[in-house]
């Protein structure tokens, strides 16, 4: 299904590299980190990164409590990847289920679901997210739930539109004519044809989820500093930005690279899987 051109596309290669790096950092955090991310060393607070004259024991410097930034970033990758994967997965499942139902069955069900999506999207998503976080209390599970509750609409709209296109194709009519049940038609005929699109949306959603985690940490609604997250490190770094710029710059770089990588991968997938564009 994937042509050679897909793998040779530099953007896709960059995207895959970023996802691999994230996965390795997440899985190997305890072995890759030079220090415990929570260990405080007050004598060594605000160490500069090693390349600008800091202590080599702390390659990327330390924060206000003398905690090792590199280790905190590696553990932050773990939190980011888990949040992104779980949130995108469940937002995708919920949105796809509703989108499939609305697009395939049409009629009143479609009107009801589409109207719900419209009302949902007329909330400012950031505000809804913050209200939800306040309701659910701080924690990574809050971030995940908030993303699912807000972003299922992205999947729902796109899947509904795509199902309506697929439904007009002959293969669906033939499947119905030979007497397959609605479930069979949806599950084994339409879903496989929507899957490439879902994969693209899923990749892009992971990027969005990483940013949402950072936003909630930044507003102070994600997790306590006991769990290192990229957003949390930025939030702490902002307080000392005039004396230690790297506290903000390093986690921001992580987020930007992760988001660019996931976007590049999503765009590459979209181009490779779109039969019109790949010609």
């Amino acid at each position, binding site marked *: 299904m994937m042509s050679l051109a897909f793998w040779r596309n530099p953007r896709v290669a960059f995207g895959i590299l970023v996802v691999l790096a994230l996965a390795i950092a997440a899985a190997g955090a305890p072995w890759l980190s030079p220090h415990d991310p929570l260990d405080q060393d007050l004598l060594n607070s605000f160490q500069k990164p090693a390349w600008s004259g800091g202590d080599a024991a702390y390659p990327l410097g330390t924060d206000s409590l003398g905690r090792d930034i590199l280790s905190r970033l590696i553990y932050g990758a773990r939190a980011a990847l888990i949040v992104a994967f779980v949130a995108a997965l469940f937002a995708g499942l919920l949105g796809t289920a509703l989108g499939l139902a609305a697009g395939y069955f049409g009629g009143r069900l479609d009107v009801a679901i589409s109207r719900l999506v419209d*009302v949902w999207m007329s909330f*400012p998503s950031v505000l809804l997210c*913050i209200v939800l976080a*306040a309701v659910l209390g701080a924690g990574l599970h809050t971030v995940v739930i908030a993303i699912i509750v807000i972003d299922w609409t992205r999947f729902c709209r796109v899947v509904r539109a795509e199902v309506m296109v697929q439904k007009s194709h002959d293969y669906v009519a033939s499947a119905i004519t030979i007497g397959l049940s609605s479930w069979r038609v949806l599950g084994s005929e339409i879903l496989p044809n929507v899957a490439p699109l879902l994969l693209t949306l899923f990749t892009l959603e992971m990027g969005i989820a990483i940013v949402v985690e*950072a936003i909630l940490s*930044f507003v102070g609604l994600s997790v306590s500093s006991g769990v290192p997250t990229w957003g949390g490190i930025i939030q702490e770094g902002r307080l000392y930005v005039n004396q230690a710029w790297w506290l903000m710059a390093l986690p*921001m770089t992580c987020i930007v690279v992760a988001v660019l990588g996931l976007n590049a991968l999503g765009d590459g997938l979209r181009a490779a899987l779109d039969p019109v564009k790949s010609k």
Partner: protein
Amino acid sequence: MSINYILKRLLWALPTLFGVAVVVFVLVRVVPGDPIAMMLPPGATQEDVGRLRASYGLDAPIAKQFLVWSGDVLQGDFGASISLRDQVLPLILGRLPATLELVAVAVAAACVLATLLAVLGVYFRGRWPEVAVDGVTGFTLAIPDFLWGLIFILVLGVLVPVLPISGRVDPTGAFDPATGFYIIEALLTLQFAALADLLKHIVLPAAALALPLAAALTRVLKGSLADAMNQDYVTLARVKGYSRLRTLWQVALRNALIPTVTLTGVQFSFLIGGTVLIEHLFSYPGIGNLAIAAVIQRDLPLIQGLVLTFAVLFILTNLIVDMTYSALNPKVKQG
């Protein structure tokens, strides 16, 4: 564009507003954390808490609270803010002009930037400027406004401090505005020193909001411009002796605007949502910043009023986008 159509659209907005109001009303009432208990000094008795709760009407069942609240709202009374001890409506109206100015500057900047980039890209088709435009838009689009805000604060506010990163106006300045629309007022009263200061403050937050929007606009506009350049009327203009640039600017651009407005309408509403974080990030005194403070303080009446305000802004934005669309394209008749 008939008055009837506009009225009909506004009428349709009412069920949406009602839905938004119900959801927010219920959501904020299941929030753990008691705003009333936070208002009283530590020595307060249960009786004091109860009395204060009753004075805000928070002891009634949720359905009854909603009825009372929506009845008041219909009469223009949004209640009193719990944390700021002031009426909600004047609070919001006082902050709204700041947000509207920020949005207007961001949208205007995004439109100008996108038009220039798209024309540049299409004019130099297949040569390096087009590649550069595509590269820059792809990169800009991938990074959301929140990250742009952080990047600007770090790079242009701290590392190379060239622009202010907080507030709307220099608090030590002599500018004493009579209205909430500072920029317009400074312009009309010819206070150029104040105007320069206001513009300096708005550059970074507006740019953070404008960049992703500009990138999305550029992408769509460039595509439609390229399509328009292949049409017969463009060939006709060229035959008539128009230069390539003039054809692009005067003939193709007008036709390319229609698909651009249609496809990017939803982006404008994203921008309004974006103000919440950007205002918080730059301590800009608009309704977005107020909203985050309200949620953190569990200020129920203020949250409700603000969310409704945002919903109204969303609905109006969509209406304006649709009206622009039919104004640009006389073939579309709505009824």
